[in-house]
């Protein structure tokens, strides 16, 4: 989410990797970034009740096997921010990647933050 506090000394070192700049994001919609062979869909919600939000979630739709999640529609359903897959319209919770309709489908999510102008995800 928005700029994080300095990491605590005792916390295991998280590596933050800059994927793109804020200007690459599209408000209330998604773009896709390449991360060492993985495809990360980035969604940007400039204004929500809880402030500005960015989510990072795997781009591969488990149902079709196609890399299309980044091109879905963002929604808010049953209390969760979700992304609707553009091909068969199932909904994934942006927070943790679980699917609202099919529990066996699940997407990887990355912690993500805006650091100045950079969009960064935590890897490792």
């Amino acid at each position, binding site marked *: 989410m928005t700029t994080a506090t300095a990491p605590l000394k005792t916390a295991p070192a998280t590596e933050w990797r800059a*994927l*793109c700049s804020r200007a*690459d994001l*599209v*408000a*209330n*919609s998604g*773009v*896709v*970034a*390449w991360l060492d062979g993985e*495809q990360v869909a*980035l969604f940007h*919600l400039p204004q*929500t*009740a809880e402030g500005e939000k960015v989510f990072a979630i795997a781009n*591969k739709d488990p149902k*079709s*096997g*196609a*890399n*299309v999640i980044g*091109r*879905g*529609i*963002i*929604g*808010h*359903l*049953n209390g969760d*921010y*979700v992304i*609707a897959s*553009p*091909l068969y*319209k199932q*909904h994934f919770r942006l927070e943790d990647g679980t699917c609202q309709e099919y*529990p*066996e489908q699940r997407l990887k999510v990355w912690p993500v933050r805006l650091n100045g102008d950079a969009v960064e995800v935590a890897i490792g």
Partner: protein
Amino acid sequence: MNATVTPIKSETLVIVGNGMVGHHCIEQLIEQGALAQYQIHVFGEERQRAYDRVHLSEYFGGRDAESLALCEADYYTRHGVQAHLGVPVIAIDREAGEVVTTEGRLHYDKLILATGSYPFVPPIPGAEGNSRLVYRTLEDLDGIRAAAASAKRGVVVGGGLLGLEAANALKSLGLEAHVVEFAPRLMPVQLDDEGGAALKARIEALGVGVHLSRATQEIVAGEQYAYRMNFQDGEYLETDLILFSAGIRPQDALARACGLEVAPRGGVVIDSECRTSDPAIFAIGECASWNGNVFGLVAPGYTMARNVAAQLAGQPHAPFMGADMSTKLKLLGVDVGSIGDAHGATAGSKSYRYIDEATASYRRLVVSADGKTVIGAVLVGDNSYYDTLLQYAQNGIKLPAEPAGLILPAGEGAPALGADALPDTATLCSCHNVTKGAVCCQVDAGVTDLGELKAITKAATGCGGCAALVKQVFEHELAARGVSVDKSLCEHFAYTRQELYGIIRVEGIQSFEELLARHGRGHTGCDICKPAVGSILASCWNQPITDPLLIPLQDTNDTFMANMQKNGTYSIVPRIAGGEITPDKLIVLGQIAKKYDLYTKITGGQRIDLFGAQLHELPDIWGELIAAGFETGHAYGKSLRTVKSCVGSTWCRYGVQDSVGMALHLENRYKGLRAPHKIKFAVSGCTRECAEAQSKDVGVIATDKGWNLYVAGNGGMRPRHAELFATDLDDETLVRYIDRFLMFYVHTADRLQRTSVWRESLEGGLDYLKAVIIDDSLGLAAELESQMQHVVDTYECEWANAISDPEKLKRFRTFVNDHRADPDIHFVKEREQRRPARDAELHLIPAALEVN
């Protein structure tokens, strides 16, 4: 010491068969609390856990095994039920009280047989392999799919209910399908002669061959196809595969072998408590025979399952007293219904018949000797009569003075039975035994959502045949209690599309956020309301859909102005108005397709579709298309698609008007108009109607005096002929009427409602529509016309708009931080063009090779 206490399960219950009924029984045992007493083991011969056999055919329509499963994968373990799948029971040792399987022996205290049936294959010499396929399990369907891959023609032996469904499946696999039936009519069990004849006419019209009174003597090698079926009379039929659907037989082999009583016609004999001749053993579902009858439907099996589960759980239960075998189906798209005594076999019964040879519709109503009640019915061609007739039959409702009215075409006969005329005891859903009273109870308890009602009562979650009736009764009961029926678009808006349209227009609302803040609930919206509102905003104000405010609202197709395909690539359809194109433009299309290696196909809408472009290629391709004078074809939008034309008076010896000219004029006028659903037009140059205008939302046919206008036609899933709306119009009046018609549709239709469905939902029908459009009965005409003129005047090619704006082009990147193409997209060549690789072909692609 271990502190956890495992409840003592004193007895072991073994269930043989994990089909629909066996599974339902487990659900009922869990629900009714039998788990406290029994440790349950279920054995299933099939590897797959219980699945929805009733909807098996959808496996060919794209549903996978997982989505057909009747429960979640961990359902059994979660409840402590031990499932042994892929493990058949080989024998029952009644003396020892054990079942024998390949895994060993297991003791039982109580045993339930739920082994279902198996397809009967008559002993015909030569029936083996692909000439001896059956249609019962997922595995059978895999076998059929494999056999069909190299086949052109397929034959189904057996013209009953399942045989016709199987024929449809063959058709959906792209085969020429034939049905061979031994009896002199189709569906001999459910239909009478006239009903069978009507069904035959309809099915033949769909291109399925029907061969009656044919007994296959032998199957030999064929000359033109793989096999030849020789019939008793010297005739033959050749085919590449043969699928038997000649009836089912109860799977009673285990019971026979262990000496349980078996009925003369097969099936494990049970009493009204579903007990077999051994009191420790029950039988339920299709393997059981009650009173000499076996029941080949889910609903009776579920009733037996409930009965046994309740007994074992020590709960009160009703005895099993047989079941109603009424059925309603859509076979090959044709409605067929059969209720009670369809053949009028009851002594003294009288029949009413309605036959319409023109449309091959047939209805028969069988009434009791005293003429007071309905005891049976047959329907072919239109099942809208079914729910009412079934309620009359099941609840002994007294017939109206003119019983024939019940089967006469709507509007001529007696009014249909309203939801309020049903007694509380009326069964609405026979699969789950839900009565009208039970629905009323839930409404009284505060249920206002249909989904919730279904979840609680399970109504309409079995075969689904009762869905319309359940909905109707539920909404009626809500309304009767003064609860307004929830027609909300989604959880964010308690309005219909039509209401939202009104609000947006009247209040001049310009953005989704503004609408949500003023009239919605929650925040952000969802994939239902966003595109609907996006479309309304576009029809009202005609901003380009590339406007940043609209982008997040739209489906990917609108957002990227191309149609997403199954592998995430896009197709591109430039507008070719009226299907007219110059040789130069054709050459450009060919050059571009070649340059970007796009699969090229002529569409059903008289234009050319280019497939397989990745996101980042779209702007380059469109740059070249626009430079050559092309515009977007809106194939992605809920908007005007094509105006199909025939060549007309310019060339054709019969043409009486310039249909191409008119098609171009109309397509250029309405292109870009956003609507509740897509809109298609056609213009024909004379009554021979080569442009098929009568199947379009707007159809125009030339006359020697001008143009005839047809509206609200549809191809697609539910074809509907367009209706003649006005005749001999001059050019100007024609356009004026179409302006009004389209804008009135945009104002008042529901989300994703084509003009055909919208027109059918209009109270007052075609006359009302004529009054509004032609006579201006609502005083709206001028407004509708000026709104349309606004849309026409502000038209702009969306692609031209996008490629002139670097900010908008930013979104057309496969990766925002890398220039590579999506490495997971693979193509293979077929018939000299590339197409998406199938999963099974991925190994053919060298790992190092990157396409593009």
